[in-house]
């Protein structure tokens, strides 16, 4: 049986530390995911446009974009978060807190999203692209109205994957004082020898993963 005392103890942490961190996590994750999806989509758009099998192959531009994507991806997220703090400060005005975390998270997630979306778009049947060409669709329309439409389930599955991946990356954002449930699990839980907090946080992370995966699957099925 769980004693009243234990419940009170748990509740104290839950209310004081964990609940705020849930909101912090959700804010960071949703904002950085939305931003990186948009930016990643734009990058993927040009990667697909200029790619070697693309709609309007352009080796120079493709290589440049590819270079940018690879460069950012080669920064481990933790290094990205701490190392770019001068740039973060320039852009969002502070090097500390949630706002300061969203920038590097977005930056780290953008090329990931770009690759996920690019990989999905690459799979679209060439014949459909030709069909769209045959009635005079522009490259923009081919990508948005044909390729994206056809690969929406893959993109949804990919975005789900990214979101879950970066949910765990928000833990690292604890380094710049952004809080978040992962940082709580690490600092208040694991490092403080507080298993109650550790397990509660991990459980909450698990619930978030479930919800994200469930939402993604639901969307996938709906679109399929």
């Amino acid at each position: 049986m769980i004693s009243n005392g234990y419940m009170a103890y748990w509740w104290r942490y839950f209310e004081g530390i964990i609940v705020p961190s849930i909101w912090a996590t959700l804010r960071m994750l949703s904002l950085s995911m939305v931003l990186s999806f948009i930016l990643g989509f734009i990058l993927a758009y040009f990667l697909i446009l200029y790619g070697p099998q693309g709609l309007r192959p352009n080796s120079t531009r493709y290589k440049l974009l590819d270079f940018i994507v690879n460069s950012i991806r080669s920064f481990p997220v933790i290094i990205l978060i701490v190392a770019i703090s001068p740039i973060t400060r320039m852009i969002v005005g502070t090097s500390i807190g949630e706002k300061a975390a969203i920038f590097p998270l977005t930056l780290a997630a953008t090329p990931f999203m770009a690759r996920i979306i690019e990989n999905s778009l690459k799979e679209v049947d060439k014949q459909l692209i030709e069909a769209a060409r045959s009635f005079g669709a522009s490259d923009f329309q081919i990508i948005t109205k044909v390729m994206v439409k056809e690969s929406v389930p893959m993109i949804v599955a990919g975005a789900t994957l990214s979101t879950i991946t970066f949910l765990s990356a928000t833990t690292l954002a604890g380094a710049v004082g952004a809080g978040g449930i992962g940082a709580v699990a690490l600092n208040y839980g694991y490092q403080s020898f507080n298993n109650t907090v550790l397990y509660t946080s991990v459980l909450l992370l698990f619930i978030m993963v479930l919800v994200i995966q469930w939402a993604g699957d639901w969307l996938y099925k709906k679109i399929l």
Partner: protein
Amino acid sequence: GQSPAPEKKNLKLGCMPWSEPMLQWIKEGLTPLGYNVEVIMFDANQLPAVALKDGSIDGIIQNHKPWIITFNKENKANLEMVEPYYFYSFFAIYSAKYKKLEEIPQNATFTIPGDPTNLSRSLIILKEAGLITLKEKTGPFYTLLDIKDNPKKIKLVEAEITQTARSIQDVDAIIATAYFMAETAKADPKVFLFEDPQNKDFPLGLVVRHEDVNSAWAKESMKILRSEKNRARFNELYKGKYTLID
């Protein structure tokens, strides 16, 4: 009453980036004596202590004494810091905006280290500085939940310890060690608002398992560290960011 552990010749010592040079000095000193020393670098967390407890490594220079005591209690371990202790790190409240503690305004923001031991220590500093009061400690460390009064409604942001110093321009004040102040904020670590009165209560040094405390290599290591040459090297390298214990 235990007999000392059989003499080991192959040693693995764990460190953090900042403590690595000290272990290199030990290695340098022990190698001619026929020891085979391997230095392993870790990120900040309790794993090196766990590894030490489990016997995967033989010594660390990473955690201060109070932490080791907590660790022992939480993990039924018997780690000990080899005496005499070596140095302590200088904690203080720093600010880029204010010259005196009294100038700290209402609703000020402080960046403090987020790892439990330094957070706990930071809270005590704030208490000692008269900015907050604390309740009874409930766990091994003080946490934000233990703040009783916060008359100035100071907002505390927990960050990775190197980031605290980096954020000095963005907040009203920070709590950091002299080491990070000098290295990351490129500021004079001697210009502070308030010095941690407990600085000397957080000594650091070589931590080993209980049975090794009296081993030849542990004793020898401390001798090496405390040699004139290495003390000079220490002061030269850390330039007052850490303070040697005499």
